[in-house]
């Protein structure tokens, strides 16, 4: 039986898990939640995940896990044929961990901070403060990519998946300037060429449509 993923297509952390599953050829049974309807705050869902976030994974043996980063690591360690996306090598792994914590603590946090007031109708435009915050994320990524093709070195890892899901979404809110961020721009292009990137597209399209409906 395939593991179950509770999800919502436009969500960046959900898409990061979908990219990961696709790249190791793992089938997931997808269960869509409607967050606006409050599906994530029902007693049943809260029993699975009291933090009421998507994605949440329920493995075939009933093991429940949330947080996209933890899920990606778990799925790879259990289902992948080799360790290339999350190497055993201590140093390589540590840098991937650092990048993923950059995602949850900085990039994704900035993304939500810009998005939430738009969703809740508290504002209708991207402010200069928003732009500044997004640009800071881009400049960190630009620095991380110094001398590297992928975010942590010469190979694609789940740090790339995690951050492409977030960055491609942040880019919808505040465009990445290719002149200011040439390495970041090249990295985005490279990731877009990966077959697994297909898994980011449908949700990203939905997200783009959604943002357009708010910003016009």
């Amino acid at each position: 039986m395939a593991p179950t993923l509770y999800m919502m297509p436009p969500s960046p952390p959900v898409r990061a898990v979908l990219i990961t599953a696709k790249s190791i050829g793992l089938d997931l049974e997808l269960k869509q939640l409607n967050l606006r309807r409050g599906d994530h705050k029902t007693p049943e869902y809260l029993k699975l995940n009291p933090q009421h976030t998507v994605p949440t994974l329920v493995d075939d043996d009933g093991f429940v896990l949330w947080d996209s980063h933890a899920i990606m690591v778990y799925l790879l360690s259990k289902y992948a044929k080799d360790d290339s996306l999350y190497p055993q090598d201590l140093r390589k792994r540590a840098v991937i961990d650092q990048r993923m914590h950059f995602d949850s603590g900085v990039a994704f946090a900035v993304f939500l901070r810009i998005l939430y007031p738009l969703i809740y109708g508290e504002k209708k435009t991207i402010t200069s403060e928003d732009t500044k915050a997004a640009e800071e994320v881009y400049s960190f990524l630009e620095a991380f990519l110094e001398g590297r093709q992928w975010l942590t070195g010469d190979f694609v890892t789940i740090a790339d998946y995690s951050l492409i899901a977030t960055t491609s979404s942040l880019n919808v809110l505040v465009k990445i300037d290719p002149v200011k961020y040439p390495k970041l721009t090249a990295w985005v292009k490279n990731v877009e060429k990966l077959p697994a990137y297909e898994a980011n597209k449908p949700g990203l399209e939905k997200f783009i449509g959604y943002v357009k409906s708010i910003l016009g």
Partner: protein
Amino acid sequence: MAPVLYVTHLTPPVRAVLMTAKTIDLDLELKKLNVEKREHKNSEFLKLNPQHTVPTLVDNDFVLWDSHAIMAYLVSKYAKDDSLYPNDLKQRAIVNQRMHFENGVAFPELLKILYPIIHDGKKTITQEDEIAADEVYSFLEAFLDGKQWITGDSVTIADYSLITTITALNVLVKIDHVVFPNLNTWMKKLEQLPVYEANRKGLDSYTTHVKLLLR
């Protein structure tokens, strides 16, 4: 040669690394950066860590930042066993989830309440601050349901990561023992661990500082 840890003040993520090092008996050479002089943004430090955060670790020729990544690395490399960061897939997965909760939810909430107090002269804790802190506490209360420690039956780096942040948040918005009994018990138990000393010093000076600002 002992690994070098760059710190500014003894902030929660720094203290989490210190607790980890103390547990596994690892000596770290602390190098203090002066934030007032913006030493964490000078070109030398930016070359090490372009994200200019502390803690930053330098272990021989290997540079690493983010407390969670550092703790996992130090345990994997220097600890005698894997108890602080279990090799077991599922146990490790829960530790990772809790650490991303610290990083993505608890720590940002702490900073959101603290920054205006430190930088804008804010003197009171608002009702909004209380609601935000209580939400963090209620998540933890749920995580601790049926568990001794934050991920299960033994102490892990997720406990260290969260205790340093929660004790700092507790100075701003007190944990209500009646509403959050699991959380209260968990804190008491951590405080009794010998390694908790590594949290106390930084926490005490932070507490004094915050109380002065709020007066």
